[in-house]
């Protein structure tokens, strides 16, 4: 039988060590790049809102309050984004110099097109989630003014109050939901915290949110 030669020189041993980790490191680096950057971007498609709406213009310059457009109705339901008719209470005609406003008046108000049907909701939840804005806003009785309100709403929503143009909407190609959609752990963490503090009776039981 041929005798096996297990002896190596130190130089050969050093070369072998680099060679042996090289493929692993290359695979690790490629996968990390793929997992952190390439695939997440490939999975998402970027979309723009139908109108470049400026919260800065409306809130900071015109002094509007959040509740003028986003309000809880008398029946407890939440209005969400305003409709064309609600926007048209001010924008029934062009009142500024912004070309986007002019486009809104011409393409939506005058054409009778509903902006609400086209507006992209960053944190739309599936229908199996029962979420009440009315309940969650009842905890914000002491919140005053647009800045405090924006801060309070930003606990769950992305902060749009300080934006001059709407953030890019990134939609997942597989699920069709926005990348900003709040996941269940986000709800649970807050509910657990307030349950522990005794602020709420809404536990993390399934039926609290899923009817």
């Amino acid at each position: 039988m041929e005798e096996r030669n297990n002896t190596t020189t130190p130089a050969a041993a050093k070369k072998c060590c680099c060679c042996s980790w090289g493929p692993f490191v290359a695979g690790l680096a490629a996968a990390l790049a793929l997992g952190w950057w390439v695939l997440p971007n490939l999975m998402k498609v970027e979309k723009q809102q139908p109108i470049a709406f400026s919260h800065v213009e409306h809130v900071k310059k015109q002094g509007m309050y959040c509740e003028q457009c986003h309000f809880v109705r008398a029946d407890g339901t939440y209005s969400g984004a305003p409709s064309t008719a609600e926007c048209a209470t001010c924008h029934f005609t062009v009142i500024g110099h912004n070309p986007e406003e002019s486009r809104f008046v011409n393409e939506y108000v005058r054409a009778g097109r509903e902006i609400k049907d086209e507006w992209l909701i960053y944190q739309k939840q599936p229908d199996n989630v029962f979420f009440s804005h009315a309940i969650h806003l009842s905890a914000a009785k002491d919140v005053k003014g647009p800045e405090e309100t924006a801060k309070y709403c930003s606990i769950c929503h992305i902060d749009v109050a300080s934006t001059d143009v709407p953030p890019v909407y990134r939609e997942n190609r597989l699920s069709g939901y926005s990348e900003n959609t709040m996941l269940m752990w986000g709800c649970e963490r807050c509910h657990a915290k307030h349950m522990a503090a005794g602020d709420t009776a809404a536990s993390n039981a399934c039926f609290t949110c899923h009817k």
Partner: protein
Amino acid sequence: MDRRGFLKFAAGGTAGLVASPIIWNTLYDAVYWTQNWGWIPRLKKGAGEYLPAVSKICPSGTGFLVRTVAGTPVRTIGDRNNPVTHGSITSLAASEAELRVSPSRIKKPLLRSADGAYNAIAWAEAEKLLKAKAAAAGKSVAAISGDPTSCTNEVLSAILRAKGSKDFYFMPDEEQPALAAWTSMGGRGRLGYDIENSDCILAAAPVLESWGVVAGNRAAFNRHHPVGAPSTQKLIYAGPVQNNTAAGADLWLPIKPGTETILMLGIAHLLIKAGRNAADFEHGYTPANFKEFADLAAEYTPEKVCAATGVPAQRLEAAAAMLLDAKAPLAIAGSELGSGGGAAPVMAALSINMLLGRIGSKGGVVCLPDHANVVKGAMKYSEIMARPLVSYTQDVASGKKPAPAFLFIHAANPVYALPSDSGMKQTMQKAGFTVAVASFFSETCAEADLVLPATLGMEAFDDVQTPYGSGRITYAFARPVVKPFGEARPAGELYIALAQELDVQLGVKDMPDLLYQHAFALGTPFRQMMEKGTVFTADSAAPLPKMKFNVRSLKAALSAALPGDAPVLAPVVVLGLGTAATSVPPFAAKTVTDYQICGKYSVAQMNGATAASLGVRDGDGLRLTAENGATAEVIVSIFEGVMPSSISLVAGLGHTAFDEFSRGKGTSVVSLTGITREPGTNLPVWGTAGLKAARA
């Protein structure tokens, strides 16, 4: 790269992917993706409203709130502000939002072709055809209405009268025999019952399930039976099956089917023995034939009543004692099936009310005025009520009367709801042209030449005039609070347009005008009713009639043969199973129990003794053969809440039309019954039948 290098690269890649969020994020995305499956119900988002409306498919025109989200009705709930229902709602009215989009809802006008298939046609073509056929028919026109509370009857009857026909009929209901009894005893106007203010009710009718103003009856029952406090009203129920009314009653008198008159006379006998007589009358009149009635009642001793009805003498005496102790007792009689009942049980119940001095008293029998007509040439309500539909259809079927050249069937399903020997199907086959105006594709629609889709109460203007069983005058508008489904159109508007095409002068231009004239006649604010959906109520000021006992008719009715020991059909009506015109609402399908239907077979409930005599056990198959030759295969269920020798079947099953939820499920109770004539009044009656049973 060698094999070892590749494996190392793969290991590094795996470690890299595990250290990146892509796997977990993809899992999350997959979870969200599952919410996109098409069969998951989608929520309607938008402003919600609660709009007062009325049900036109519920027989008593139940008022309710329609909850809408962004204009779409999502459910119906009781209306606490409704002065009739006080927040109660019937199981049928509770399912109306779902029924609105039922698979059997008719979406477009349908015309039957030569091969029997139905083809959708445009409304313009349908209206042209309607006008041509109605005009060509001359005076040979007839109409059947299944909605006696609606003012559209005035329009239809005015069209018929203008053409020279009197053949306008209501579908058989509880009021027709009751009105016959009432008028034969001297009553005027309509018969009403002040259930709300009575403190003891003897009911030979399912008052908590299907008789009268069900939601109002239940609301009164709830108010008089508060939780944790003594009740202020006693309910005595007489019926063959321990149904929902029996379950709520303070005293249940289990009787053999068809023996209500005997039971009532037995109680009348005990009341007379206790000193109740004509001298008790509050209103100062004495029927001349009290002695004659007392002699008749004296024949019905507790022992004799027990032998005939099966009610033990002690229970009969307990019932009489409860009536005697009450300050405002009231006796009610009707039929378990809701139609086909006789006048004799009502006469006997009215006799008890007379003995107790309850005619025209608070919490007693009320004299209500006839429905007011505002349409020129419309037929009087009580006149229509006095003409039984079955007499007409039997005459047409047998050739005694000519078949109509044009037959209108409005909101009714007589082909299913009437016994097979009623001649209804033959009448439709003989008629020159038949038009069914309906919301759901029923057995009657399947026999009609032209089927027109009608709106529901929440989709169009209509009204609910005082339904039978009410103790007050009530008037409510049906208002369009949601869009009509498909191409459905309001029946009232269709008839008014037809009248205008035929040059019939109605004196009204459209439905809102018709409703306005009714509101004006009653002196109630139209705008408030129209905008807010308020309901008008008023106590009747009709003059008190001079009543007399109808001993002759009672004697004649009592001469009919009593049910022997052979099994007798005992139908049970549950509004949750819908009516003949609606069939089983999809919403209520989950409330149908294994004691009502098992697979495609109806369940026949009977007590242990009956099952033993038939040699069957719980779960066995049983073949029932009715006197009219009809057969049905059913599943046996042992229930000791059914009288011996009675076989209880739930009504509302056994449809051959409608949708997958109703078609081919169970047995139609009516198909097992046959029509006989009530001795004394000659009214057509059905609802119970002798059955032959054999193991299947």
